[in-house]
């Protein structure tokens, strides 16, 4: 149970927490924040497992993947915020209406 | 234990003491304005001491210069932040604490 595995489990924990919050919270801004936490969790899993490389140097490929992921996450978040504000201006409330028919 | 390491340890401990004071102030003080004092003053002095302590161990002058620059930037940022928060709080009518 070295440090890398500790951080990997934390990443998994963050992902599960985000998943729970995503399912429970109704406010759209809270859902977007939950996605950010889930994204950080997934990247932490990736980055922590890269730390297992021998002799104190971490594997650079997952680091590049995480940086790409962070930039993708921030652009998705920015777009989601703009869309949320548009939903609020059209429907008057920052929630998704209840699904009328399945 | 070389002399420089002794000085570093002393400076770092002093820095930690100031950080502790800052945090205690933040938790214990009654209103926004007093907490601003605790936060801005104590923490920045704490950071200055930590930076100074580490600068002694720094291998090149450039590293020392960079640490000094970091400290100055943090000073600038927290001073502005403190001013903005205080002015905003005053304008929003948060009453300053007065000893009853």
């Amino acid at each position, binding site marked *: 149970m070295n440090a890398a595995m500790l951080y990997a489990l934390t990443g998994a924990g963050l*992902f599960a927490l985000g998943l729970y919050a*995503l399912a429970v919270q109704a406010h*759209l801004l809270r*859902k977007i924040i939950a*996605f950010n936490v*889930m*994204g950080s969790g*997934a990247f932490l*899993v*990736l980055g922590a*497992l*890269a730390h*297992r490389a021998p002799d104190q140097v971490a594997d650079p*490929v*997952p680091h590049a*993947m995480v940086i*790409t*992921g962070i930039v*993708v996450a921030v*652009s*998705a978040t920015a*777009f*989601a915020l703009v*869309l*949320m504000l*548009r*939903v609020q201006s*059209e*429907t008057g409330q920052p929630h*998704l*209406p209840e*699904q009328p*028919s*399945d | 234990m070389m002399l420089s390491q002794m000085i570093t340890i002393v400076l770092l401990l002093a820095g930690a003491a100031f950080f502790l004071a800052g945090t205690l102030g933040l938790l214990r003080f009654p209103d926004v304005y007093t907490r601003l004092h605790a936060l801005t003053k104590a923490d920045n002095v704490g950071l200055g001491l930590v930076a100074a302590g580490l600068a002694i161990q720094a291998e090149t002058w450039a590293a020392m210069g960079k640490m000094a620059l970091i400290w100055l930037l943090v000073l600038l940022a927290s001073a502005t932040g403190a001013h903005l928060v205080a002015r905003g709080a005053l304008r929003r009518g948060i009453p300053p604490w007065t000893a009853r």
Partner: protein
Amino acid sequence: MGTLSPDSPWTIWVIFSPLAGAVFTFLWPRRARLAVPLVALGTVGSVACLVWQVAELGVQSHALGGWAAPLGINLYADGLSAMMLLTTALVGAAVTFYATEYFRRASETARYFWPLWLCLWTALNALFLSWDIFNLYVAFELLGLAAIALVALAGSADALTGAMRYLLVSLLGSLTYLLGVALFYSTYGTLDIGLLGDLTAPSAASWAATGLMVAGLLLKTALFPLHFWLPPAHAAAPTPVSAILSALVVKASFYLLLRLWLEVFPVTAAGLGHLLGLLGALAIVWGSLQALRQTRLKLLVAYSTVAQLGYLFLAFPLALSPVAATAWSASVFFILSHALAKAAMFLAAGNILRFAGHDRIAELGRAPYGVSLSWAAFGVAGISIIGLPPSVGFAAKWLQLEAALAGGQWWWTLPIVGGGLLATAYVFKIISCVFSQNGRTSGTNGISWRMEWTAFGLSLAALGIGFAAPQLLALLNSGTPLALHEVGSAP
């Protein structure tokens, strides 16, 4: 597996002509009217050359940046990718032709439709060619964001809520898929699909990664229990966008699931295959019943997509029998037939909607004469959806029935045939409006011949390509390891 001729340039042009077009149309929106046909021609031309190369010389690949597999990213075009690229090119070109007319008056939305649509086309082509699981994640994200932005372009309240719900589902699916990528990379140390295929062996980590990836992809393919987001988004989007979404975007995540199932996932368990088949059958029944209940035309067509997607998933249990190759070819044919027919249906429905001003099925009877060609297109597309000869849909259903009977799993024939009957029901529910003579012609004349002929052309293509089935079958088998995946043979 065919000769692996290195570095075909066409794989690059297929991806970067639409991307360059997207940047151009964003920088010079007023010159989009000239640039878009050029870019569309360039893309379709390079897709045609690539498909010809794959058919003649076998698998094409391109080591990007000059780095070999484990370190660099490979582009890889085999029979399966060629078929998907062909479908995307056909439907994409038709929708581009339709959209130039559809957005003629709404220049404000058109200014942003072209960069978004060309980005989506790039993402589709990049997804079908990429041979690297993390690269597929980035292409997936590009695809999702472009599709959601296009849905939100309609600007109405339910378009925006549909787009928001689609965004939440898309982000959740991508993050789950990313977690699967993290697990696979941490276990096997490579991201290349080919290398992963040789290394994967059943272990706790690879099972978890498979489960995560399958869950993420099912969410984005809107398979039965997870289909709630599809109808509102597809119905509320502008007409050309609905056609693109139902015909192409939903198929991209199925293609990815199929590619990973064939190449990467450790020995595919019979249980998971049968579960997917069961969900597919439920999707067919539930989607068709919901389609029958709908009162609005575009929602009916959207629920028909949910139903037709079920057919694709029937291939998973059928492939667990010695006739796996027939089962996989059937589902790829389904992708082609549904793409063409559903695009035609949505374009026709869009014409009717624009002409009559509303799409409430009950009152559609009064407006059959203004857009008679669109009604014809809807009917002909219905033939392919139902699966009557000589359409490609019929060829696909025939192959699937053949695989079901030859593989000894006769019970799968029930959803196939049942689905056909239900499809007949909801198609004729619409066609019957034409024969009810209670109408005087009403509605604006905002329909140009281009829009009607595109819909009709696509429906004819869905009918006509049935004749080219043998050539398509040959193309599909050049380089795709379809036959390899009989039960028990290690990948």
